[in-house]
């Protein structure tokens, strides 16, 4: 089973990299970009065929390693 985990910074956490990308887009002439927040994507292949099991395993992976829940949120998507 294939899954995608998206890790993003929590709102309220400053994102200097996102700000720099925002500035870069403005410099390229993209008008109307209100804000950019950057994050990470993990594509994970799991042995299980059960979506609930996969979601539970991925949530544990996020809590233990993939995300730093002090500053980051995660979202799990079964593909």
């Amino acid at each position, binding site marked *: 089973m294939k899954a995608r985990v998206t890790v993003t910074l929590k709102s309220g956490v*400053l994102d*200097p990299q996102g700000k*720099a990308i925002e500035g870069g887009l403005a410099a390229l002439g993209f008008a109307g970009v209100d804000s950019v927040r950057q994050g990470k994507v993990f594509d994970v292949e799991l042995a299980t065929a059960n979506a609930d099991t996969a979601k539970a395993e991925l949530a544990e992976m996020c809590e233990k390693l993939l995300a*730093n829940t002090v*500053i980051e949120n995660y979202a799990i998507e079964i593909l």
Partner: protein
Amino acid sequence: MPMKSAVITFPGSNRERDMMYALELTSGIAPVSVWHADTTLPDVDLVVLPGGFSYGDYLRSGAIAARAPIMDAVRDFAEKGRLVLGVCNGFQMLTETGLLPGALMRNAGLTFVCREVMLETASTANRFTDGMARGAVWRCPVAHHDGNYFADTDTIQALEDEDRVAFRYARGTNPNGSINDIAGITNKRGNVLGMMPHPENLVDPLQGGIDGRAFFESALGTVAA
């Protein structure tokens, strides 16, 4: 009695020798070198997580090292009330393990900073800086890309109220945008300290000064009473 210490080396550590040099210089006792894949610690008083780029800073700085085999022993060691010091990448590992609150984010200026800052000893209410002069300002090198200390408002308030900010960047020298100019913090019990600056790189005149010695003398209990 001077303390016995151990320094843990991870793949990608690069300040472990500097740290061992500073510890031996101060205590007169050669520290024990421990490998990250070990699962037990020697009988010492202080364990140091040194600076560097463990595991290439993959995922997040200190994130993989925080899950290394030796870290369960480090957690037990801290729970027993013995001293754990993390410098730079070691500080990042301590926040990743949860032994210290908060996180070290990308520097506000986005660039790697390698320079000298002025550091204020902001608290002496812990087992590391209790022999230092509170409010003293001293030179200390920094070298990091992710030193921007962040924690939620409640955590910052608790750190301030409980006098757990051991070091602050002084005189407008904050190199990374950290909240409240925080350069180093301790846990509640005062036996775990994480700091971004490198006092081990200013202990010998050959390094350009000896400002860092006072920290090691205090932490190792070799300070003249």
